[in-house]
């Protein structure tokens, strides 16, 4: 296949998508009068919240659901309004979306792409959801994003950190608010250099699947650009529960930094094991041995307990941020549930508001209209400073937090401290960056 044919096929394909709708009264036709998939006809509009309710990420899923409920409450005019008051766009009235009361349905992704697609389909086919959002892994996000593209609804991805979500698997109907592996690397590397010097030898342990690889690639590139050497990169099975046999050789490898490209249960266990093996007490090459966890989440950090103390990583948002928006969100979430929100909660809350706002600004629920309103949208007041939804790949660009495990936590939630807020400009990359190459956004699909 030559390059030109590939492009031609791509063009044909987008044409076909549009054409198919006309040629056959096919895809999920509810009534032929509807202008787009699941057009809300009554006084309500239904959103689909697709989060892991069972399986290892159930706690993150539960926190996402809490935030969704809070967002719906705020959209419908209840509660204290949360970040609606600080949001730079003032389109939202507190009377639902476009005057329709917001309802929601929930589904269980089980953190499996099949199950996630099944529950998303059920929300679209059965409950008439106009938008799907949520999730706690990149595999699920990409799978559901593809489905929403085919079905013709908007997908607002939840926790998904892989470059692919807005890289080779990007879709016109999908938007990501979360940051990604490249941004983690770009944000972390300067801080690492500042804290640990530029003459470091790094040893990577990487979860052996797509996200792990992109994470490793990103942080490796970012640290090597600053002068670090990479001693070894070792892949660990996703199903591994004990990392002792991967940690044990690290001390003898000549490395003086261990980078754990792990998430969730893998991260908790590998970090626990690394600390157990006394890595943090050692001096290697005349330097203090350090451990880095590129992607942090407070919920998971809690599982790792004392072991996170002093360990650097990046995160999307943290409740201790002192801007007005974050404070407003923490206040309204904390008042309702009694504890501060996680970054997962923050992300999905923002996305619900952003979707609603885009509908208001577009004046329609039509996915193509909404997508247009979101593309290139610049805003402020949702807790991460000035933020841009880039039109080219539907990735969101905003400040990234570099955090460190707190040495003296004052409460069970006070586990991380913000070391640096890396400005958006420093983590921005061109849409055709090699780590994000391949794949096409395509054209938006309205379904009907």
């Amino acid at each position, binding site marked *: 296949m030559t390059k030109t044919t590939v492009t031609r096929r791509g063009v044909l394909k987008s044409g076909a998508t549009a054409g198919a709708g006309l040629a056959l009264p096919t895809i999920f036709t509810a009534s032929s009068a509807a202008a787009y998939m699941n057009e809300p006809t009554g006084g309500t509009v239904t959103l689909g919240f697709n989060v892991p309710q069972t*399986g*290892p*990420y*159930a*706690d993150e899923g539960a926190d996402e659901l809490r935030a969704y409920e809070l967002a719906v409450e705020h959209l419908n005019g209840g509660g204290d309004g949360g970040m609606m008051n600080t949001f730079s766009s003032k389109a939202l009235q507190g009377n639902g979306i476009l005057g329709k009361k917001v309802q929601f349905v929930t589904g269980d992704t089980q953190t499996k792409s099949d199950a996630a697609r099944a529950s998303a389909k059920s929300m679209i086919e059965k409950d008439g959801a106009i938008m799907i959002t949520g999730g706690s892994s990149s595999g699920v996000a990409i799978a559901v994003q593809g489905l929403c593209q085919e079905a013709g609804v908007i997908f607002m991805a939840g926790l998904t950190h892989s470059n692919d979500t807005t890289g080779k698997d990007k879709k016109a109907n999908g938007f990501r608010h979360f940051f990604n592996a490249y941004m983690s690397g770009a944000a972390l590397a300067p801080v690492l250099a500042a804290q640990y010097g530029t003459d470091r030898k790094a040893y990577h342990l990487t979860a*052996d699947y797509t996200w792990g690889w992109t994470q490793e690639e990103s942080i490796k590139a970012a640290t090597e650009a600053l002068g670090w050497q990479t001693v*070894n990169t*070792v*892949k*660990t*099975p996703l*199903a591994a*529960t*004990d990392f*002792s*046999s*991967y940690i*044990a*050789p690290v*001390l*003898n490898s000549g490395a003086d930094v261990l980078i754990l490209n792990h998430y969730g*249960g893998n991260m*908790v*266990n590998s970090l*626990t*094991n690394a600390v*157990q*093996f*006394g890595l943090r*007490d*050692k001096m*290697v090459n005349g330097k203090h041995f350090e451990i880095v966890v590129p992607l942090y989440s407070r*919920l*998971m950090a*809690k*599982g*790792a*307990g*004392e*072991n996170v103390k002093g360990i650097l990583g990046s995160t999307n948002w943290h*409740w*201790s941020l002192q801007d007005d928006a974050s404070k407003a969100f*923490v*206040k309204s979430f*904390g*008042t309702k549930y009694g504890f*501060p929100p996680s970054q997962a909660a923050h992300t999905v809350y923002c996305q619900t508001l952003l979707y609603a706002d885009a509908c208001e600004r577009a004046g329609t629920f039509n996915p193509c209209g909404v997508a247009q309103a979101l593309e290139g949208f610049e805003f402020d007041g949702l807790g991460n400073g000035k933020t841009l939804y880039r039109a080219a790949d539907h990735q969101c660009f905003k400040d990234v937090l570099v955090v460190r495990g707190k040495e003296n936590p*004052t*409460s069970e*939630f*006070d586990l991380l401290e913000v070391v640096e807020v890396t400005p958006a400009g420093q983590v921005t990359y061109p849409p055709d960056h090699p780590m994000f190459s391949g794949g096409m956004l395509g054209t938006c699909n309205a379904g009907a």
Partner: protein
Amino acid sequence: MDAFLLQILNGLDKGSAYALIALGLTLIFGTLGVVNFAHGALFMIGAFCAVTLQRLFTLSFETIDPTRTDFLGNPMKVKTPYIESWFGPDIGAAIIDWSVPLAVLFSIPIMLGIGYAMERGLIKHFYKRPHADQILVTFGLAIVLQEVVKYFFGANPIQTPAPAALRGSVDLGQMIGFQANAIIYPIWRLVYFFFAAGVIAAVFAFLQFTTFGMVVRAGMADRETVGLLGINIDRRFTIMFGIAAAVAGLAGVMYGPLNPPNYHMGMDFLVLSFVVVVVGGMGSLPGAVLAGFLLGVLESFASTTWATTTIPGINQIIIYLVAIIILLTRPRGLMGRKGVMED
């Protein structure tokens, strides 16, 4: 050489957990003829005994400290464990610190009780049922147990740290003449290994040297004959079920400091423990122990850079590959008896 020794150590350590779980599993199978898919859940419950005890020790009363504020800006509620106010902060903190070893004592009666209740309440009715039914009902039970634990403790892992005194690592290499940092090993992992060895030895001694054990062994060999002698073998088997549950539970309690327990850790170990039992030979106690350590060591070696560069992905499949090779070359596992579980 030092890398080699290090992986042997790692293997023995992983193997300890495998062997303990497989020991109980094969004990239940050998005595009762029951395929127990809930055995992993017992391991998990053991670990949560430690979590529970830690929670009990840290039960706290709240006092309001007006000088500090919480995340919402309200006056901070400071929690003080009751135990610290009863015994004084030092002893109280020490008790909390030692909660995992104390949980060993706490868990034995609990696990025996759970095992006893499980056998009398459920398993007993399934002795004569097909293995498939046993699998379904114990699998159902495993799901119920883990969901109940999840309901109370959440899905995230929970730290159950070892006592501070046993938390660090020792430089074993230096002790035997290698250079510094060559063989660093965590103290708690050594404790776990010796603990496992002790438990295994105790189970074997119990079966070997007590009358009770003798009858059980005879029952494992030929249940009907022993029954004909007028010995109430069923009651003894019930107790054996309790013991098997306790062994799995102990494996779980002590495992907590190695890797923080979560509600699905039992399922993570379930497949593996069945592989261990089968590789060792169904119903063979020494086989289970041998296979546990063997697979632990092989798994450790397969995860070295040398192995994964020679055969990509070997660390993912080694356990299963070994199981296939052993089952094809030794039909009944390493030490299995003929005719067990072949129908």
